[in-house]
């Protein structure tokens, strides 16, 4: 999966340490890889909720699910992501 190219813009800053940026990109890529191993619905919820910054209510409305269902999905999704990251040996 291609990285979001916005990350590249950071590299253009004269005040950003290049190594850090590259490491952050690698971390992001690994997060993506771990996310890809989640159930599709869990992945949607985790992505919208924790990466896109939507509120519980917004995610529920966007996906057409109840807030209770989103709470359960975010719980299971985070747990699954944590396990997947651990298998990838990514500390996050």
């Amino acid at each position, binding site marked *: 999966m291609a*990285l979001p190219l*916005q990350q590249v813009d950071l590299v253009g800053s004269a005040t950003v340490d290049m190594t850090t940026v590259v490491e952050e990109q690698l971390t992001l890529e690994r997060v993506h890889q771990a996310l890809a191993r989640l159930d599709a619905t869990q992945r949607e919820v985790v992505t919208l909720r924790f*990466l*896109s*910054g939507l509120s519980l209510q917004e995610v529920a409305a966007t996906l057409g699910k109840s807030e209770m269902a989103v709470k359960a999905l975010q719980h299971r999704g985070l747990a699954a992501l944590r396990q997947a990251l651990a298998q990838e040996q990514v500390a996050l």
Partner: protein
Amino acid sequence: MMSDEQLQLQLARLEAGESAEAVLADLPEAEAGLVRLAANLRALPQPERPAAKIAAQRQQLVRAAQDRQPPAVAPAPHRRWGWPLALAGGLVALFVFAVAAATLAASVWMRPARAVAQQRPFTSTAIASTVPATPTTAAVQAITPHDAVLTEARGLVELQTSNAQWTPIAAGQAVEAGQRVRTHDLSSATLSFNDGSQAQLGPNSEMSVDALDAQKSGARVIALTQWAGESDHVVAHSDDPASRYEVHTASGTGSAKGTRFHVSVSPNQLARFDVTEGVVAVAGKNTTVNVVAGQSTTIVVGQAPQTPVFLIEGEGQVTQAGAVWSIAGYPLKTNASTIILDDPQPGDWVSFEGHLLPDGTRFADRIVLLHQRIENSFDFTGAVEVISTTRWTIAGRVVRVDALTRIDDGLAVGNMVEVRGFVATDGTLWALTIQPAIANAFRFTGVVQTIGANAWVVSGISVTINVSTTVEPGIVAGDRVAVVGQILPDGRWLATSIKRAALDTFDFVGVVTSTAPWVVDGKAIAADAHTQIDAGIQVGNRVQVRGRVLTDGTWLADSIEQLDEGQRHHVEFTARVKHISPWVVGAVTVTVDAHTQLIGDIHVGDLVIVSGNLLPDGTVVANKIILVANQESCFTFFTVIKSATASRLVLFDDQTIDLDNTIKVSGDLKAVAVIMVRGCVPVGGDLKVILIVVVGQLDRLPVIVIIPGDDENNPRDCKAGPGLGLGHCKHRQPDNNDKKEDD
């Protein structure tokens, strides 16, 4: 184990602004893992992106959700956690959003230099900043195949109906085939179509909708004519071969099936098509050229399109000017056709745009000054304590004055003043100007939208008028004006004068109501990598914001400076490091503490920029010390891979890139892949490639059409040099993959 509800309660605390440490401290370790993960995801780096793009992505996300589960509820207009939306590219299920994110991401990357180059004739509206200037955005609503909806409008946007009258329109209004939309100065508009495609008009642009049948499936027809200005197009993919998305100009037409491109029409009807994703067929005078991602072509009225060229752009410090410029140590040829704005000089920071010549050298089409060389300057606000002919004491600091110091009349001891000047090498503060400090003063340039008896609306800001306001006669809606005044305690912006203005800057003092994104006294402020922002500014602080109004109306800050009059005195100067621990820079003793940002590997003798607060004893508490000599400059260019091995890429121009594990690679590097290459050059150093991203895959090396008799008219010097032209030069020897097209 915590329940779903308990987890949500903890996450809600994070969303409400509590620190992760505080939330985690209340949890047993066994239960803290998921909350910590959520907090860390939140803390992942977030690139700054145009809010317009965020809004567009969000609309597409909601639209995708609507398709899935109507009726959908539009999300709230703000992001509560400010998390990295960029990562939403991983949202595979909502593929529309994902495609849009990748597309827009490419745009951001490919046009970093356009963010501030507002005076250029081919200026994109893709702004590398965070917040638009008071746009109006339409609520997400149904769009039929036979109309477009103005989903965002900034400044003054007008619609011409069948009776040829122009009337202002607002976001949410439909536009039908046969109608025209135009934008004024400092304005922009986004048209959204039923199939998900979007056309965004830049400032001073005009476009008509000729034909519209934007079906989501089957043959999609969107035909537009661009009469003036600039536009960006995001074209939804269609599998139907009969689908059309066309942008006509007086010079030629660009047709796309699922791509992203930019169209500029200059006053003499020269049209330029820049492609940022996919392929656009550009036709003119019986000739069609295929323009691939990273390429650009221009068309003169009545002529065939120019041979497409690969674009380069970037920014950096000028170390040489002349026929060959050196920017960030990177040679760029120029000639009389190169547009050079604002007279950059060696030492200044510039952006550049250009293209590859057939011999592989780089040619600059445009060089724009971004920042002048840093001078040793200071400015602060404080009460006058002592006045003499050679020295003033202001808030405890002695400031030298001389015949060159411009001092406003009538200033006396006790007055609150703003003093600006420069720091001499011995640390003496020499004043250039001393003028009264007006509480909550503002000054900005904007476009007049409405004129009322008691209030005007200028670039989305309601400006109060009273009998003391001086208004230049004859100003009408659409004029660009400079507004000077004072923000009143009740939040109103009271104008003391409104005049026509050619300048495009703003400067005001206000209270911070948000820092992410920046909002000061209710005004959204964009910031980019060049914005100097004092460390530690919090909501509620009074700040002085200075910057420029970009052509689309965005207020892009050059600086956001904290104001604690009488206590805090900003100073910035450039000098060599004399000593470390304790720090002495130039002749100034500099306090470096845990809050000081040290940028670069700084040693004694290095040239640094010190930014901080001047104390009464003449020492400086540094907020930031930047190593000047090690500032790197980065740029981006596009090319095509001719062949690839695990350790080396051979490019279409026979140049090579040696691959090693320090280069980040995204995508499958193989023959005839179009790649974007990101490189950085330390001052005085060599180019180091840091990132390669595959942006497309061609069927073959992109030999473009041969245009009979093109040489004399082609400004892209394509006359010489075999093998290095990235396929642009008709003299290039074809290889096995090449075929001439459209002869």
